[in-house]
């Protein structure tokens, strides 16, 4: 599904050039659950942004679904993104002005789904994730764990093939963290590819493969951790 070769990302400000990623090679197949680990500033989030088509690499090759997307325009990336990729963030990133229902509905709106379909689908997902009773609330009225459920609901609403989770448990206590990991595992078991950035070795064990990043390089890959399997 994803092939990355010699990927490089350099941030340039007026005076300094910072290399966030250097010569990263990574293949991810459909249905995998990959955890990316590493110390702060090692380039995890940058990698995730590039994988999620939120950002372009400075150099190297990125094949997504057999298309070379490394030089795609914003519009092309946006198009691919909204059909194929869902995001879950550490800080939930819900829109404060929208209700739970509207937050979850948003991706379908931008996909241009008809109203009846949107309604059915949102209700289905809200039901599934047990946040139905909260659908008229605004994000601030929910606990962190509940907000992250909403974020997951939003990430899966458009049935993406890939979910990118950037420290999805980072702001949660262990009970809620476990709960979210359970959700992700369940999604993965149903065929969704998941790439997750995490600091926590125990949550990394939910994945089948852990990629360690250090200073913009992949240093090790452990395949076959099995906690979830």
């Amino acid at each position, binding site marked *: 599904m994803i092939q990355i070769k010699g990927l490089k990302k350099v941030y340039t400000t007026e005076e300094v050039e910072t290399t966030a990623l250097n010569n990263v090679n990574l293949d991810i197949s459909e249905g995998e659950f990959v955890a990316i680990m590493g110390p702060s500033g090692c380039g995890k989030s940058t990698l995730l*942004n590039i994988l*999620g088509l*939120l*950002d372009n690499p400075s150099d190297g090759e990125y094949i997504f679904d057999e298309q070379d997307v490394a030089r795609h325009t*914003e*519009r092309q990336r*946006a*198009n691919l*993104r*909204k059909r194929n990729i869902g*995001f879950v*963030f550490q800080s939930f*990133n*819900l*829109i*404060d*002005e*929208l209700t739970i229902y*509207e937050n979850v509905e*948003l*991706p379908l*709106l*931008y*996909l241009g789904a008809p109203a009846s379909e949107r309604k059915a689908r949102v209700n289905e997902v809200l039901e599934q994730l047990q946040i139905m009773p909260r659908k008229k609330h605004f994000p601030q009225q929910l606990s962190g764990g509940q907000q992250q459920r909403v974020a997951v609901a*939003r990430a899966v609403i*458009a049935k993406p093939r890939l979910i990118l989770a950037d420290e999805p448990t980072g702001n949660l206590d262990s009970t809620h963290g476990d709960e979210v990991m359970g959700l992700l595992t369940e999604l993965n078991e149903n065929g969704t590819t998941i790439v997750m950035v995490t600091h926590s070795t125990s949550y990394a064990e939910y994945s089948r493969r852990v990629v360690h990043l250090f200073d913009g390089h992949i240093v090790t890959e452990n395949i076959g951790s099995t906690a979830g399997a």
Partner: protein
Amino acid sequence: MLKGYFKVAVRTMLRQRGYSLINIAGLAVGMACCLIITGYIISQLSYDDYHADNDRIYRVDQIERTKSAVSYDANTAPPLGPALLEIFDEVEYAARLLPANRLLKSGDHSAYENKFYYADQDIFNILSFPFLYGDSATALVRPNSIVLTHHVAEKFFGRVNPIGQILTVNDKEFEVTGVIADPPRNSHIICNALASLNYLQDSGIMNHWLFHAFYSYIKLKPGVDASDFGHRIKRIGDKYALDVFNEHGYSYDFVLQAVPDLHLYSHPYIGPEPSGNPLYLYLFGAVGLLVLLIACLNFVNLTTARSMTRAHEIGLRKVVGANRLQLFRQFMGESLLLVFLAAVIALALSEILIPHINAVTGTALETGDFARSELLWVLFGLLVLVGLAAGVYPALFLSRFHPSQMLRGHAQNPTGGMTLRSILVVVQFTISIVLIIGTLAAHRQMAFMQDRDLGMNMERKLVVPVRGGLSLRSNYQEVKNEFLRHPVVTAVSASSEGPGHDLSCLYTKVLDTEEGRVQSIPYIFIDGDYLTQYDIAMIAGRAYQNEFSSDSTDAFIINKSAVAALGFTSPEEALGHRMECGYGDRDGIIIGVTEDFHFMGLQEPIGPLVLAWIPPLLNHLNLTLKANHLRENLEGIKNIWHRLYPDHPFEYYFHEETFNRQYQAEERLGRLFGLFAFLGVMISCLGLLGLVSFMVERRAREIGIRKVLGATVSGVVMLLSRDFAKWILLANLVAWPLAYIAIRRWLNDFAYRINLGFDIFILSGLLVILVALITVSFQSVKAALTNPAEVLKCE
């Protein structure tokens, strides 16, 4: 999707209540100003557009030339109209109006009517006066017929059909033959009563080519080229009266003035009603636009500033699939919603404000004006324009960023945004400062004109017109003594309508010099007490004296300016020379020369003037009252009047007040400028307030860190105020030269004007800086007092 945008827009608005309020209020006020001014401009431009065929109707004015002077006049001689009709096939109708002031009486009810005209029957075929009663084709044919406007008819005859009723006009009976609708406000001429001109047919004036008292109107046949026709009538008078003109040293050019242009583009001060000034129209228009511009800049400024805080939301929307077009539409929608709200408030506001605006500025706007379709279009245009302007920037700018940057908070681009915003603030304050300087200068010029020593004393002078068929000729001494008997009356004189009013200009010729200088000179007719009563100083010769009977039969007094105008080298030289006025109506010897005094407003330089004692022309009584209780004593004076003239209403005015009325246009301008300056500063400060709170919010962390590191409260306040102070200083530097140029040009209209001191500029600058700093301090002090721990723990 649309519903979604709308929902978010409303929620965003409510969530940021303070900003929304500032934003909408500022914009609404600006739009209201613009609407009111547009209403005013439209009403000025719509003058006389209600006349049928108004592309074919003209007033014929004249330019009078002598060897030494040129004067423009709307009043022409009675034979002009008939002559044009007789000679030129192109003329479909010609009709004349002769203005007069008459005492109208019916039963017990009597009143002066100063919008009284003698008129030709054909005036109804030229100007549109819709008839409510009577026959427009014959109403003024018979000599003793009169047509009244609806409200005058109602005043005298109640709500019944008055056709056939008798109305007394200065003791002569006229039959009411028609009632016309009250003329619209936007008419260059308001006729409340039209009596048949045939009444004057035998008076001996109707063939007089030098009797300039009539307004001559014509209607051209369809298809006539007016400019070509204008050339052909230019010297029409010569055909009839060349020898009369030559004999007196005059020549006349006649010019066509299109009736719809009369209000704004005819020669000022010569029409029957006050004319409009296109310059002021442009000025008001510009000021209105400026205030609107300030409000719009505010709106754009605040909206874009706020939108920065929404970078996160936008990032998210992009992450979940929004494309640029969708975001663009969202921002546009929000901005249009705000603008729409502002427009609704503006409309309500203008309706509420109009009576107040009218009171302050003396305009005659009506609330219904805003339902006019033109204005609604203006409003709609404003709405779309402002909405787009405010929406485009965030829509284009913010939707451009990579979502990853926005989520990390890197899209804020603080410097770029601030530069644009600083420029906007500088522009706003520049406009405000110019308006303030303009206001101060206008007020100072007004004070200067009102306080200036006029060279005569108009204080405590009560003027009582004697008209409606009355005359002071036979009983003046008796009348004078009656008034003098009242304890508060210290002096009495008689004169024609004096300084500050339109004076009649008479043909004046020095008889006994070789040159025989001819001039058209304004006259005030006075008696032997006038000069003393008004404290007018003599610089040569003597004043009129009651003891010399020849003073009222063959003597003249002229002012200093007339000395040179009549060709004398010194006041002393003028004494003893003979001159004649009118067309041989009076000749006499110059017995005295007065110091120059301001007999017209200070817009005009002092010109030549003749003060002649001609008893039949004295029709105003001037009473000097004791200093206190001017108004309280009117009752006693009124009683004396009624004892003397039981049938005539008592009319009066205070001379100083009517004199100062000449400054009405300037006073209005000053008030309007003041109003707009106030609004401009208010709106600018609202904007500043919004901007400062935005900036404080953005710099909360920085302020927290500074405080942790030891910054004092005053230090932080300084830090935040410094930037704004810098912008406003810059605004001052830009505003000063602009204001200077504009005010110099305006002051050039005045013959006597203030020196434009630097203090006005400094004062305005300081005022604005002070107001701005106070505004800024609301937020900056609050920020500086915040506990840094609160700010920093959020990070």
